[in-house]
């Protein structure tokens, strides 16, 4: 079983190889280059020969030697400036983030101002005033680059200090400095290293630019200076660019690329979300298609049998991973509320996402599922019913609305799938009224509404196209008790009004007992018991069900 590497891991390796080249050149420069990089070793402007592999410059200095020794300058400046900037940055970040108060205000203000200055002009002006030595260049670049690491690390410190174990350590009287070292500094390492690579990279480019503009150390030919020299000697016109310009230019590119690749890898390390394999969302790629002619269940003739039927459903998050849902089967009878109940991790949300074709990445879904007698598990079939025949209220509905659009727009957008836009707008207004949002709120953006109101909007969205089945995944998560009760009441009323079938996913047993008709108990990706609420609640057959039903600790005793 070979696990696929993330792009960052691959790029990181390539980056290290790229960096090894100039690093080796820098260390073994005297062995590699036979001539001095400073004193003339031949006639000026020689073409490449065995003695001078890249010829000589306008003073007769060997270009190959300059190239090899130039790696020392680039790396020294890059690493030197980065060490300086990171040390200052970490100090500022930890001091500001740990002490808070006026220290933080002053330090972060200073950081913001430094950040606001354009990098290269500031370096240019500072370098112009303070001279051209290598050390000065490194210090100037470092002095200008500490602000970004300081800002990023400061945000990280603020986050870390709110972590429970850090708070606990502080509450138990751990002294500041021990706390900082044990809990903060060690955890800052990934982010710090990502910033280090960034600064080093920027420092190398800046040094090259400075040297190219004639502000480099005149005693040490760096790559930027070689390019400037070649340029002022008209290497472009004489053809000397082939050995005088391309090598130092490419050398710069290789070092910068090496740092960029390792930087990308270290940023993945610092922020694992970037590397997570939840990569592709298959529903993104599909071409626009006309809404398929609705597969009408012969009008008038009452459809019979369960509206949704699932058999032996097996789901792997990815092809090589273990099964998360292990052969689940259940039916959702018409116009009833069926509840999928289980602890978090029991696979209940996964089942629904798989049915609707919304699982991210490259999942493996086996088994059978039919909706209104038609097969459901293909991507095309799921896309046909999604939003049209099956309405879905997602988990964590607090964030299920796009912050950039008004709620009316978001409901109308859903309705417009099956009706002309004018009608869709009217319907959106009606729906929002229906779920209890007065007309003056319809132009609101999600952030202007409370959690309960947002949840109502999501329900309105799910109902936009008069679905036959409504799937609600933990519809009351994150809401206060009174709001939970009112959302449940709304769902119940809508069900009766519209003759909906509801599939309710929850871990809240109290909620189930009040609204559900049918019960499917899940544990670890398997169904352990199912039946009508009355039978199962009265006489649970399984120990697990009994335990689940006995968790009456839930304080949801509010009656509506």
């Amino acid at each position: 079983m070979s696990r696929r590497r993330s792009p960052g891991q691959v790029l990181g390796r390539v980056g290290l190889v790229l960096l090894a080249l100039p690093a080796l050149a820098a260390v073994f420069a005297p062995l590699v280059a036979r001539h001095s990089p400073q004193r003339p070793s031949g006639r000026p402007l020689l073409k490449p020969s065995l003695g001078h592999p890249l010829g000589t410059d306008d003073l007769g200095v060997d270009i190959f030697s300059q190239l090899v020794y130039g790696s020392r300058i680039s790396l020294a400046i890059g690493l030197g400036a980065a060490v300086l900037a990171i040390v200052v940055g970490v100090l500022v970040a930890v001091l500001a983030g740990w002490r808070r108060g006026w220290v933080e205000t002053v330090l972060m203000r200073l950081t913001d101002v430094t950040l606001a200055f354009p990098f290269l002009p500031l370096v240019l002006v500072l370098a112009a005033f303070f001279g051209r030595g290598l050390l000065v260049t490194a210090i100037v670049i470092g002095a200008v680059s500490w602000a970004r690491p300081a800002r990023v690390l400061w945000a990280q410190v603020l986050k870390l200090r709110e972590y429970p174990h850090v708070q606990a350590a502080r509450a138990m009287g751990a002294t500041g400095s021990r706390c900082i070292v044990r809990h903060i500094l060690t955890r800052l390492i990934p982010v710090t290293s990502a910033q280090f690579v960034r600064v080093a990279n920027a420092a190398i480019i800046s040094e090259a630019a400075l040297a190219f503009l004639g502000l480099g150390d005149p005693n040490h030919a760096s790559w930027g200076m070689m390019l400037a020299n070649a340029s002022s000697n008209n290497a472009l016109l004489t053809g000397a660019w082939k050995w005088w310009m391309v090598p130092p230019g490419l050398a710069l590119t290789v070092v910068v690329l090496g740092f960029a690749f390792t930087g990308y890898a270290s940023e993945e390390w610092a922020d694992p979300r970037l590397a997570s394999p939840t990569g592709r969302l298959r529903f993104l790629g599909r071409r626009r298609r006309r809404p398929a002619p609705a597969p009408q269940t012969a009008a008038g003739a009452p459809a019979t049998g369960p509206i949704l039927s699932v058999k032996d459903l097996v789901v792997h998050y990815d092809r090589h991973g273990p099964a998360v849902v292990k052969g689940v089967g259940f039916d959702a009878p018409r116009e009833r509320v069926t509840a999928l109940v289980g602890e978090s991790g029991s696979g209940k949300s996964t089942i629904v996402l798989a049915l609707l074709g919304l699982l991210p990445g490259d999942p493996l879904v086996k088994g059978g599922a039919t909706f209104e007698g038609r097969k459901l598990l293909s991507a095309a079939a799921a896309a046909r019913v999604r939003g049209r025949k099956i309405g879905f209220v997602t988990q964590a509905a607090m964030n299920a609305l796009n912050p950039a659009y008004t709620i009316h727009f978001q409901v109308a957008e859903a309705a417009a799938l099956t009706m002309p836009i004018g009608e869709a707008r009217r319907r959106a207004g009606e729906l929002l009224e229906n779920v209890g949002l007065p007309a003056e709120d319809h132009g609101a953006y999600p952030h202007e509404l409370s959690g309960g109101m947002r949840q109502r909007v999501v329900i309105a969205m799910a109902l936009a196209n008069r679905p036959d089945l409504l799937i609600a995944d933990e519809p009351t998560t994150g809401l206060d008790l009174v709001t939970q009760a009112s959302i449940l009441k709304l769902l119940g009323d809508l069900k009766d009004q519209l003759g909906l079938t509801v599939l309710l996913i929850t871990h809240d047993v109290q909620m189930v007992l009040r609204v559900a008709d049918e019960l499917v108990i899940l544990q670890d990706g398997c169904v352990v018991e199912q039946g009508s609420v009355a039978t199962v609640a009265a006489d649970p057959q399984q120990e697990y069900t009994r335990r689940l039903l006995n968790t009456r600790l839930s304080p949801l005793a509010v009656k509506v």
Partner: protein
Amino acid sequence: MLVLAVAIVLNFALPRLAPGDPIDFLIPAEQANRVTPEQREALASAYGLDGSTGQQFVLYLKNLAKGDLGTSTRYGAPVRELLADRLPWTLLLVGTSVVLSMLIGAALGFRSAWRRGSGSDVRTLTGVMVLDSFPPFFVALLLVLVFSVQLRLLPVFGALPGSDAQGLEFALEVARRAILPIAALTLSGIGSAFLVARSAAVTELGEDYVTMAAAKGLDGAGVRRHARRNALVPVWTVGMLNVGALFGGAAPVETVFAYPGLGRLIYESVLSRDYPVLQGAFLLIAAGVIAANLIAELVYPYLDPRVRRPGAVGS
């Protein structure tokens, strides 16, 4: 505002903090040995360097308020006029290349994000990072090599045509001379726009509203529109940051093309030790950064309703 204040103070302090007598910075390097003590004193009083530090600072602020940035030691012309001559050219280069690199970078970045983890995503990511690793002035040199030296298609130097072309012909000549510098700056700017657009879009794709958008029946294009709308905010921010950075950051590229922009002016001033011009350019660049930030702030409300109508219930 604070930035401008710091820039002013820094401008005042730098020549005084730097090693050596500030007057040395006012004397053109080639004349340094021939200046008599009397001349030095005359210079000192002319530039307000003879009072106490406090008096000097007040005088400096007064002159600044009058728009007097001093006199170039090299050209003998007021710094303000020199800057006013160069600014339009830099605006032309920087404005065009930032818009282009933002558009190209964002388009590629979003495209990569939708295909996250696929071969085409990894190829684009690698390609853009390689492109981004070429130092801007090296890109400029390569462009000159290919288009001017080898193909002889485009002129290399300056911004204005030598002949006295009129009207449309003049505009065309100016455009021909701007193509290569703009191309060099655009190519070097694509990388940051790409990376920001890609990671912003990837972050947005992980949000619940994207799943919800798909769940309510939108097709791929509809769902992408939802994510893109929110990913635009960071792309815009970085774009405006780039405007600030490029204001003086274009110096190496302008130098390659001998383009008479601000960056080139800074370069010339550094070489001739023309410190008043250097300070004036620095101040102007700081003002440019502030202007870019201001524009960014003015546009935020249109991009993000949470900025437009704050003060909400809930989280």
